[in-house]
C-alpha cells in the first residue's frame, strides 16, 4: 500500500468541504453551471475550498456535484477517481446514490481515458432525450486554445479550447463529436481542471485533430 | 383611460380587504371557528383533504374557512401548502383489509362474513329539510349516542377475497416495483395503473362522478356491481432504523370501493370478473365509487375492449381531472391578453379590408359584364377557392417532404 492510498483511507467524509450556505452557495454554483452549458466553451472558475489530500477529482467537479446532486440522483464514478473516500463523502454531503451501471447514471465522474473503455452511459431516446447521463470530466488542463473548435447554439461564430494533450483528450472529444449524428440523443459534459470549468452540450458542433468533419460543422464554418 | 386598464398594488390590496370583509359577513354574527368546520362540516373537510392529497383535517377546515366554503379554492390552498412540506419518510402501503370498520356494505351478497354494517350514512334518510336545524334545535337523534360509534368494529376480510378462493375474480398482483409518484414527477402518457389511480384519487369529484355516470349510461358500459364499500380507520406505518417491526405513526380515516365488473376472458384465460378500484382520504364514498367506475373504464385497452367512449380515453380523462390545474387555467382567461388580442385585431382588420376590396372589384366586374348581358356562373368563387386549396395542399405536401 503506497502513501497516497494510506492518506485516502484515513479521509473521513466530513473532511470533504460542504457548502457553508447551502441555499445561496448552490444557487451561485448553479448559475455558473447554467452559464457554462448555455455558452459552451466559455471558462468559469468555481470558488471552492481545498479538497482533502489524495482526492482525484477537481474542486470544480466537486462543486458541480454539491450543486446538482441529492437523494434523487445516481452517480457513476470511474474507479481511478474514487479516491479519498469520495463515495462516502458524496453520500454524506448530498445523499446521492452511487451506481455501478453507467446506463442508470444521472452523472458520471470520468476522465477522457474512461471513455475509451466505457461506452454504456445513457444517451436518452429520441422521445426522451433528457433521460441521459451528464458527464463530469477531469482533464489535465483547460484553457482557451486552438486544439478544439466549438460552434452551434451558445457560440457566436466559433470558440477554441485546449485541454492539455490533444491526444489524451481525443477519446472525450470523439464521444462528444458523435452527439451530432445521434441528436437529440447524446451526452452533455462539464469539463473541469482545478477550479476551472467549461461545458460542451450535445448540440455543440466540434472540430479538431482526429475528428471527422461533419456536414453540419462545415455548414457552420461557412456561415461563421 | 390608459392607466385605468392597469391594476396596480392599491387595487390588489383593496380587493383582498374587500374579499376578507365578505368572507367575515355581518359582524353581529359570531365568527365561524375552524374547529366547528372540522367537526360539523366533516364531509367538506374530507373532500378537501382527498383532492389536496394532504391529510390534515384542521388545515383543511382552515382552508374552507379562508375560501368562504369554496371547495375548489380550499383544495388549492391546501395543495399549495403541501408544496412547502418536506418529505420526512415514506409510509408502508396501508392495509385496508385491517381497517377498523365504521361502515361496510356489499351489494353483491345478501350477507357476508363480518356482516353488513350500515354505519353513518345519508343513504336512507328522506331528503326533507330539517327545520329543527334551522331553528337551531338539535333533532332528537343527536341526543342519544349511536351504537357502535365509540368502539368501531373489528377488522374483517375483504369480500372480494372470498371470490378469490374460487378464482372467479382477477387477482391483483404486487409486482414489487416502486410506484411512480405523480407529486414529484410529471406523468408521461401512457401511464400505468398505479399512476392512474394516484391521478384519479386527487381528481375532482364532480368530474369523476360525471365520467363514471357516463359509463353507466352506455358510454363504455362495463356492468358494475358494488362488491364492497368500506369506511373506517387505517394505521399508517413507517419503517424506522433500529426497529424490527414497522412503527405506527397514526391513524387516518379512509374510504374504499371495490367494483366487480363483467368478466373478460380469452382463449388462454377462463372468464372471470374484473375490478375497478377507488380509494380516498376521509369519508368520500361517492368519490370512491365514481373513481372505481372510471378506473375500470380506463382498463379497456388492458382487457382488450374497444375504446369508444370518453371515459375510456386515458390521456383525455387523466389530463383534465385535477381541479387545481383546471380551475387555474380556466381562470387565467381573466388575466390581460390585450397584446395577443391586438395581434388578432390587426389581422382581422387587414382581412376585412382585403375582403372589401375583393368584393368591390367583383361588383365592378359584374357591373361591367352585365352591360354585355352575361352573368358570372354561380359558384365560380367557390371553385377558385377550392383550386387555391388544392394548390396549397400540393405545396404543403412538398414542404412536408422537404421537412422529412
Amino acid at each position: 500500500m503506497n502513501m497516497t492510498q494510506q492518506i485516502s483511507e484515513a479521509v473521513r467524509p466530513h473532511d470533504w468541504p460542504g457548502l457553508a450556505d447551502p441555499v445561496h452557495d448552490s444557487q451561485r454554483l448553479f448559475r455558473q453551471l447554467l452559464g457554462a452549458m448555455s455558452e459552451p466553451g466559455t471558462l468559469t472558475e468555481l470558488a471552492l475550498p481545498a479538497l482533502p489530500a489524495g482526492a482525484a477529482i477537481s474542486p470544480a467537479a466537486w462543486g458541480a456535484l454539491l450543486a446538482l446532486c441529492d437523494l434523487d440522483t445516481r452517480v457513476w464514478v470511474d474507479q481511478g477517481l474514487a479516491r479519498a473516500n469520495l463515495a462516502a463523502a458524496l453520500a454524506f454531503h448530498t445523499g446521492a446514490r452511487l451506481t455501478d451501471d453507467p446506463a442508470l447514471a444521472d452523472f458520471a465522474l470520468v476522465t477522457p481515458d474512461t471513455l475509451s473503455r466505457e461506452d454504456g452511459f445513457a444517451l436518452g431516446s429520441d422521445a426522451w432525450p433528457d433521460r441521459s447521463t451528464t458527464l463530469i470530466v477531469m482533464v489535465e488542463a483547460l484553457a482557451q486554445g486552438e486544439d478544439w473548435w466549438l460552434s452551434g447554439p451558445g457560440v457566436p461564430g466559433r470558440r477554441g479550447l485546449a485541454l492539455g494533450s490533444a491526444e489524451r483528450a481525443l477519446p472525450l472529444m470523439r464521444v462528444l463529436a458523435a452527439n451530432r449524428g445521434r441528436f437529440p440523443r447524446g451526452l452533455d459534459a462539464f469539463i473541469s481542471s482545478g477550479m476551472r470549468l467549461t461545458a460542451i452540450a450535445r448540440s455543440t458542433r466540434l472540430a479538431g485533430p482526429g475528428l471527422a468533419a461533419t456536414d453540419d460543422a462545415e455548414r457552420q464554418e461557412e456561415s461563421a | 383611460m390608459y392607466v385605468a386598464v392597469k391594476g396596480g398594488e392599491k387595487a390588489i390590496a383593496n380587493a383582498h380587504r374587500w374579499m376578507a370583509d365578505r368572507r367575515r359577513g355581518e359582524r353581529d354574527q359570531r365568527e365561524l371557528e375552524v374547529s366547528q368546520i372540522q367537526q360539523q362540516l366533516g364531509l367538506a373537510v374530507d373532500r378537501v383533504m382527498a383532492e389536496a392529497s394532504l391529510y390534515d383535517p384542521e388545515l383543511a377546515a382552515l382552508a374552507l374557512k379562508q375560501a368562504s366554503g369554496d371547495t375548489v379554492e380550499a383544495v388549492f390552498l391546501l395543495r399549495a401548502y403541501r408544496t412547502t412540506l418536506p418529505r420526512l419518510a415514506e409510509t408502508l402501503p396501508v392495509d385496508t383489509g385491517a381497517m377498523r370498520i365504521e361502515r361496510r356494505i356489499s351489494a353483491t351478497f345478501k350477507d357476508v362474513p363480518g356482516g353488513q354494517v350500515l354505519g353513518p350514512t345519508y343513504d336512507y334518510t328522506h331528503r326533507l329539510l330539517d327545520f329543527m336545524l334551522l331553528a337551531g334545535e338539535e333533532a332528537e337523534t343527536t341526543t342519544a349516542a349511536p351504537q357502535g360509534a365509540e368502539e368501531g368494529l373489528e377488522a374483517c376480510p375483504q369480500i372480494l377475497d372470498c371470490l378469490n378462493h374460487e378464482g372467479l375474480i382477477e387477482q391483483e398482483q404486487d409486482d414489487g416495483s416502486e410506484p411512480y409518484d405523480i407529486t414529484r414527477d410529471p406523468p408521461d402518457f401512457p401511464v400505468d395503473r398505479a399512476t392512474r389511480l394516484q391521478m384519479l384519487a386527487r381528481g375532482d369529484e364532480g368530474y369523476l362522478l360525471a365520467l363514471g355516470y357516463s359509463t353507466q349510461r352506455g358510454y363504455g358500459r362495463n356492468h358494475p356491481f358494488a362488491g364492497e364499500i368500506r369506511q373506517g380507520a387505517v394505521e399508517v406505518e413507517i419503517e424506522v432504523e433500529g426497529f424490527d417491526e414497522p412503527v405506527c405513526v397514526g391513524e387516518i380515516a379512509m374510504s374504499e370501493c371495490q367494483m366487480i365488473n363483467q368478466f373478460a376472458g380469452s382463449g388462454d384465460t377462463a372468464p372471470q370478473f374484473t375490478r375497478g378500484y377507488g380509494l380516498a382520504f376521509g369519508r368520500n364514498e361517492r368519490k370512491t365509487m365514481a373513481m372505481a367506475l372510471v378506473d375500470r373504464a380506463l382498463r379497456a385497452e388492458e382487457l382488450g375492449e374497444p375504446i369508444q367512449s370518453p371515459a375510456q380515453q386515458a390521456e383525455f380523462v387523466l389530463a383534465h381531472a385535477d381541479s387545481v390545474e383546471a380551475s387555474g387555467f380556466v381562470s387565467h382567461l381573466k388575466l390581460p391578453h390585450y397584446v395577443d388580442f391586438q395581434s388578432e385585431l390587426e389581422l382581422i382588420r387587414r382581412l376585412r379590408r382585403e375582403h372589401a376590396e375583393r368584393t368591390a372589384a367583383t361588383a365592378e366586374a359584374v357591373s361591367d359584364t352585365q352591360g354585355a348581358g352575361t352573368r358570372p356562373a354561380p359558384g365560380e368563387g367557390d371553385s377558385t377557392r377550392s383550386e387555391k386549396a388544392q394548390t396549397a395542399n400540393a405545396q404543403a405536401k412538398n414542404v412536408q417532404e422537404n421537412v422529412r
Partner: protein
Amino acid sequence: MNTASNAQGVGAGAPTNAIDSGYNFAYLDEQTKRMIRRALLKAVAIPGYQVPFGGREMPMPYGWGTGGMQLTASVLGADDTLKVIDQGADDTTNAVSIRAFFERVAGVETTTATAQASVIQTRHRIPEKTLRADQILIFQVPIPEPLRFIEPSEEETRVMHALEEYGVMHVKLYEDIAHHGHIATTYAYPVKVDGRYVMDPSPIPKFDNPKLHMSEALMLFGAGREKRLYAIPPHTRVESLDFEDHPFEIQAWDEPCAICGATDSYLDEVIIDDQGARMFVCSDTDYCNSRSEEKA
C-alpha cells in the same frame, strides 16, 4: 491552476434579506430547485426540446405564471435584480402580484428598468430594449406544445417531435393562407430552434419572434400546469416557420406611439371614448417611459 485554499464566494455571508422567514429562500425547497435546475441544464443542452419536470403547486393558480415562477425561484439569487412584466407592462396586476411575491419570499431587489434587471420574468412580450449576455429572460408558458392544437394527444406529439415529423404544422399554416390569404397565426407563432425542434415561443406576438434569433441573453420557458420547461441558449438560430411565397412578416402600425413617438415598438390600442376613438401606445411601459424621459 489548483489554488484550492481560497474559499471565496462560498458561505461568504450571503445576504439573507428574505422577509418571510417561514418559507425557504424563493419559496421552493432546495430539493425541488435542484430538480428544476437539473432539468434546465438538459433544456439548454437540447435547445427547443420540452423537458418534463416535477412541477409543484405554487401559491398562485396554474395558468397565472406558475411555470415561470418555478424557474425564477430556481434561478434567482440574493444578488439578482428582478423585473416582472405582463403584456409588456410592469404595472399590470399579475406582474405586480408576482413581483410582490418574490420581494416577500426572496427579498431580492426589483426594478422596472429593463437595463437594470438581471432576471426578467415575462408573460406575452419580449422587452423592446435589446437584452444583454448577463440577463436571463424567463417566459410564462400556458401550452408548451406547438403541435397541441393539431394533435391533442401527448403520446402522439411526443412521437412527432422524436421523428421530426413537422409536416402537419406547415399544412396547418398553409391552410390559413388558402383560406385567408395570410398565415392567420398572430401570436404564439411557431419557430424552429437550431434547425431541429419546432417550439412554441409562448403567446408573444409574432412581432417579438425575431428577438429570439441569436439573442445575447439566455431564454428560459416554464409551463407549470403542463410540467414542461425548455430553453433557447444565447446565439441560437431561431426561425419562424414560413413559406417561400409567403415569408414570415411582423405586424406594423400606421402611426407612432402617441406618448413617446416610437415607430419600432409593439403598440397597444387604447379606446379613449365611447365613439370608438383610439390611440396607440407602446406595450412596453419601460421602453415608453425611458423614451419620454429622454425627450423631456
